[in-house]
């Protein structure tokens, strides 16, 4: 019994340390640089991995317990929602197009995050960050799967979701989110952590995840809302990890500052360009709107992000330069994006439409500087033409930005009447950019970005037709062939919402659910 009395007790912090980094050891049969081969080439200097502060202390037994409880609740709600045809209680069937955008554009990124964090969680020589990254890797496969499962019932009843995985690797606008994540994963492990852990999960998550989930809550989509809420506590862990990464790297060596600053500049811009899709979703696709894109940007980036960068100023980090350009774009971004999708509505896997009059009034109130002057007249013209049977579908292919891969639809900062073009000559080729920031990103790593798989170039090179297609054959229809390659069903997945199968089915089914017919 004497042993009992003298037994040392560990505090919570020490206990977590023996449960994680205490498991690690310095190898002697193999060299550190062979075990962790990717840690040096980015130029980040780490002198003492033990200085890493664990952002959260969760042992696996507690993790399993909490997460299982969350899963149990989540799937109970998903099942109940499916069983009583919850999809019929959304505001109107146009809403479902946001779900399509989410499943085809975002869920595959959750999966990429899972693999990316497995990679980072294998490669850091510090045990603390390795454990935190691996836990995030596990969370991210959760997010991919809960989204696929929650949205499965929509896929059973609506078009545009049935080939989300196949489309993500092929469809023109989905190359925007895909190339964003491919860019992060192919960077070194430190840049990946700054790109995804910090810039995306910490700085921009409120502008991606929150608008979709709040939009779901406002529009009666309990399924999406529930997986969003269920992911919240995971996201909170991911955010603390993202912030700890930045602080840790910056505290380790002053030479890390310029590298990290460049990454923050780059990834804020890369992330912002992806958010173009969210901007138009918020302003145009939600029947019941939560807030405008501009308001979201002001609250979540300018205010909250501003406070964050003030906090990081003690490390020498400054607000990314691109914030000024973004501020100039915020009155225009969503309108220009929706206009483009309305044009290319024949080649998109969701429906487009012209907003109703009251929706235009809402847009005018939210965008007093720009909507009535530049965008309402165009939308009204399109509506008139559609009413006369001339719904316009653009059948030419747009020029894409080499970096962000978005069609060159953005206007000059400060002049919304002039399209912004930039170009660079590199090794006998000319490369095109939507902005100074995308151009600078290219110029810093041209060998990376000349590899971009640009959907339009690929179509012109004949790489986006089903196998065995003969583009020289009589009556060859390039758009039809490309849509086949996408597995996009013409007349069901694409075109205007007005007259779509989704619209008709929703009306019929809602009638069955609410009336005695």
């Amino acid at each position, binding site marked *: 019994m004497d042993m009992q009395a003298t037994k040392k007790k560990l505090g919570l912090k020490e206990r977590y340390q023996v449960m994680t980094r205490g498991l690690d050891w310095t190898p002697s049969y193999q060299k550190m640089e062979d075990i962790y081969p990717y840690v040096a080439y980015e130029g980040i200097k780490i002198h003492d991995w033990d200085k890493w502060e664990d952002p959260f202390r969760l042992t696996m037994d507690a993790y*399993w317990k909490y997460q299982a409880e969350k899963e149990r609740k989540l799937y109970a709600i998903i099942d109940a929602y499916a069983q009583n045809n919850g999809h019929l209680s959304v505001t109107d069937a146009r809403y479902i197009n946001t779900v399509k955008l989410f499943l085809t554009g975002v869920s595959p990124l959750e999966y990429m995050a899972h693999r990316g964090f497995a990679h980072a969680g294998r490669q850091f020589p510090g045990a603390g960050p390795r454990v935190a990254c691996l836990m995030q890797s596990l969370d991210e*496969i959760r997010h991919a799967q809960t989204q696929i499962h929650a949205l499965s019932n929509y896929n059973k009843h609506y078009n545009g979701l049935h080939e989300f995985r196949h489309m993500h*690797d092929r469809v023109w606008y989905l190359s925007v989110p895909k190339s964003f994540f491919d860019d992060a994963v*192919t960077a070194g492990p430190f840049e990946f952590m700054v790109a995804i852990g910090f810039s995306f999960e910490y700085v921009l998550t409120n502008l991606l995840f929150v608008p979709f989930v709040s939009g779901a809550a406002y529009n009666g989509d309990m399924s999406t809302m529930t997986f969003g809420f269920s992911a919240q506590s995971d996201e909170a862990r991911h955010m603390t990890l993202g912030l700890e990464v930045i602080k840790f790297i910056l505290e380790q060596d002053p030479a890390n500052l310029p590298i990290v600053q460049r990454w923050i500049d780059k990834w804020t811009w890369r992330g912002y360009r992806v958010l173009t899709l969210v901007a138009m979703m918020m302003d145009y696709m939600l029947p019941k709107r939560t807030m405008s894109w501009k308001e979201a940007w002001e609250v979540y980036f300018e205010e909250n992000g501003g406070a964050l960068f003030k906090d990081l100023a003690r490390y020498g980090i400054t607000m990314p330069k691109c914030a000024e350009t973004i501020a100039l774009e915020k009155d225009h971004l969503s309108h220009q994006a929706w206009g483009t999708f309305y044009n290319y509505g024949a080649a998109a896997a969701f429906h487009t439409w012209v907003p109703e009059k009251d929706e235009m009034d809402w847009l005018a109130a939210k965008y007093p500087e720009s909507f009535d002057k530049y965008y309402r007249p165009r939308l009204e013209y399109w509506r008139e033409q559609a009413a006369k049977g001339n719904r316009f579908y653009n059948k030419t292919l747009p020029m894409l930005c080499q970096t962000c891969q978005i069609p060159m639809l953005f206007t000059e900062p400060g002049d919304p009447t002039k399209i912004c073009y930039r170009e660079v000559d590199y090794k006998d080729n000319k490369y095109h950019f939507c902005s100074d920031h995308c151009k600078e990103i290219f110029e810093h790593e041209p060998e990376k970005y000349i590899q971009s798989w640009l959907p339009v170039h690929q179509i012109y090179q004949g790489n986006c037709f089903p196998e065995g297609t003969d583009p020289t054959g009589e009556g060859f229809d390039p758009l039809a062939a490309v849509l086949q390659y996408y597995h996009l069903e013409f007349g069901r997945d694409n075109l205007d919402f007005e007259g779509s199968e989704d619209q008709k089915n929703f009306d019929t089914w809602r009638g069955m659910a609410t009336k005695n017919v």
Partner: protein
Amino acid sequence: MHIDLRTVTIKPLRHTYDHVARRIGGDKPASRYQEGTFDLQATANFHYRPTWDPEHEIFDTGRTAIRMADWYAFKDPRQFYYGAYTLARAKQQDTAEANFEFVESRGLAQALPVELKEAVLRVLVPLRHVAWGSNMNNASICAYGYGTAFTQPCVYQSMDQLGIAQYLTRVGLLLGDPDTLDEGKRAWMEDDAWQGLRRYVEDTFVLKDPFELHVAQNVALDGLLYPLVFETLIDDVLSSRGGTAVAMLTQFMTDWFGETRKWVDATVKTAAAESAGNKALLEQWTRHWRDRAAAALLPVARQVLSDNADSVMSDVVVQFNTRLAKAGVAI
């Protein structure tokens, strides 16, 4: 008595995602495992080569010498997607918690004969580091392997092994104190009995082929270590010497191995059945890593079984060979 509750019935357009339907023989209801697994990993039109491995695409079948016409031929017999996985582990965690509580509250740790307690600590505490090594290796297979059907179970395996390392840490703290962990680590770093095993683990850290790493870690090392330590040393030998309480503390590991080996066997069986080339490769790898693992584990076993370690070890190897033969790999 049957009660007929009515809901509004509408006829769906389809029953599952098209890529899932193509794999399950048509449009019919699919399981959550199927929808959460099939084709989840990108396979086409990668934008950039990894700056850390420019020889390969982000996901590349060329990272392993195993060739598969379809990497989704692999099926996890447990059908683990995240939800099913965490529910299964939460249940085991409940049992483990109850077992620790039982041993602690009844003072069973103090009641263990000193000699026995020391033997247990001598063997179990350094194994925290082996489990930690497996955590890293399975993270590696998950990151660099190909196809969600093959890589998904590896993230579960990786985190399971972290959990096991943590349970072993708790055993060390319960039967000993924080110094016990330091002593275990010292033995792991310095004592002859552990150097073969430590060399084995460190050598696997530099394996580049994710399937060979799977064989070295999940097939060979765990395939010998778990039957030897948890099924034989703890459950049989030490229990008979009055160490039943220890078997309660390691029940998680015993149950875990019984469950995960089904998945491991399925991967070997599927890969070996694919081609003669795969089969030959798997035989070569399994033989090589089995021999190394057996040699590395023998001195570990000798710490507890002074007389019959050799015969116990060879029994374990015979069982392992039989198991692998059933999976189509003759060694």
